[in-house]
């Protein structure tokens, strides 16, 4: 089981990292999302994975570790905010830099 999870996390991260290294903003956004999925799952799994034991007092007899869940929830919200932000920023950049390349049409135009 642990192996399966580990591999899944590995795949998520790999794809995410690969995509953020691409040249177009949209791919980068996709990559960031995948990466955050991977990271959230990773953080989540750090509380060790148990089935059918939600941390709701009185519901079941033994509970899973609630803390990572709380952390992940915070992380999800934050990464959501960031995604939303970066998507709109990508739009803005694409318009102003005349291209949806991450460096715009000409990376060094404002250096001379």
């Amino acid at each position, binding site marked *: 089981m642990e192996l399966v999870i580990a591999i899944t996390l590995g795949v998520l991260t790999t794809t995410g990292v690969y995509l*953020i290294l691409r040249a177009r*903003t949209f791919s*980068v956004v996709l990559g*960031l999302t995948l*990466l*955050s999925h991977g*990271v*959230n799952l*990773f*953080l989540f*799994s*750090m*509380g*060790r994975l148990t089935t059918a034991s939600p941390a709701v007092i009185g519901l079941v007899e033994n509970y899973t*570790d609630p*803390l*990572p869940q709380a*952390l992940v929830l*915070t*992380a999800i919200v*934050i*990464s959501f*905010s*960031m995604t939303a*932000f*970066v998507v709109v*920023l*990508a739009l*803005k*950049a694409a318009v*102003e*830099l005349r291209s949806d390349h*991450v*460096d*715009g049409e000409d*990376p060094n*135009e*404002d*250096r*001379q």
Partner: protein
Amino acid sequence: MNHLMIMPIVIPLLTGAFLLVMYRYNIGRQRSLSIGSTLLLVIFAVWAILQAGVSDYTLYRLGNWQPPFGIVLVLDRLSAIMLLLTALLSLFCVLYASRGSDREGSHFHALLQFQLMGINGAFLTGDLFNLFVFFEVLLIASYALLLHGGGRARSRAGLHYVVINLAGSALFLLALGILYGLTGTLNMADLARVIATAPEADLPLLKAASLLLMVVFGIKAALLPLLFWLPRAYSAASAPVAALFAIMTKVGFYAMVRVFLVVFGLDEGSPANDTVLAWLWPMALITLSLGGIGVLGASSLRTLTAYMVIVSVGILLATMSRNDEQLLAASLFYLLHSTCMTAVFFLLADLIGRYRENGYDRFSVISPLSHRWILGTVFLVAAVSMASLPPFSGFVSKAWILQSSSTLPDYLWLWAPILISGLLIIAALSRAGSGWFWRPEELADKAAPALDGARTATVCVMIAISFSLAIFAQPVMDYLEAAARLIYEPSGYVEAVLGDYVGQSREVTE
């Protein structure tokens, strides 16, 4: 339980939120609110300095939960210093921005207040995940502030800055995950305790986590090779924002000090931070050298200042990585100086740029400027201080760093880049100054706009601070030494935070 302690976080939060509710406030009211809240921050920071001077550690248990279960704020001399520095810096930035640059976009003041909340939170928190949260707060606010005013350069720099920091946040979460998975706790003191007693097999993993954190904080602090976003971001930002950003790299430095020296440094025998410090030393030195080269090669005053920031980061991290109490105190003094002066130069670039007929702050452009004498004098004095020539704080701090590092076996590795970069800075600044103030013709005074007294005064006061920092160096140094001493007594920190808590109610779940 002293409620004043949470003020540095709550005040800007309330101000920012209130500014959003009153989103129709005219700029005047926004300004007065923002300035007022920043003034309050200064007052509370002064209180914090005094408080930390009286008692080494002041705790604030949020939700009244016993650490390590609840989040706890810890105020010691180091955090107090950073609070005061931030408050003063932001006050000047707000004042400067209130002369007009805050109108270039919407909600400048609200965003700035949120930024302050994030920075202060990062300085106060004693919980690693909470540190992550405050990092996100100050980052998202800084994204917004960086874009403030719009324009191509800002969009591009902003996009890079944002994406890079998102990657950084992901790394932070990974490191947090590893740490929690291995130690089962998030409170810094508790982490220190557990790491110090960690099983041999786990140690490499913990150290790997510390290396990840080095990258995370390194991105914020602009450590080579993680710093390439900085020059453009800082030179694209509007002047007061860039000036405020002068503190941001120092947040990264602060986090490294806290985490590497305290959390990973508890076990005096074989501290877990040896690996990360070993990596920091060479990288910081290269950072410093590259910064010096960049200063020489800069094409505009803002870029030059951005590379000055990199130089200062290099010096700070290099000294910090040598794990020496005296040296840390010295680098803290240098931190005060460099933060102040880089901020000054970002503002100065804007101030002078406004009075040059064309070319703004570019060196390549020879343009007539007005108010040559006043601006020239201010620039000269500022440059002397920036080049850490006497009698300004830069000279004292540099002397202190060189002195206290001379006991190291490999001190020359630090001395050479520091002294040489100093020379490069002198060369670059003398070129800039003579090119701007000696070369061109005076602008006909009727054509010239009147000199903005408030902006100029702001800059002058900041320079004066750098000067008085040198005049009253001794008391400051005593305080900093005490701060450094605390950092190098992690056991005291753990003792103070955890108190009588002895791993009770920790259960093993297979």
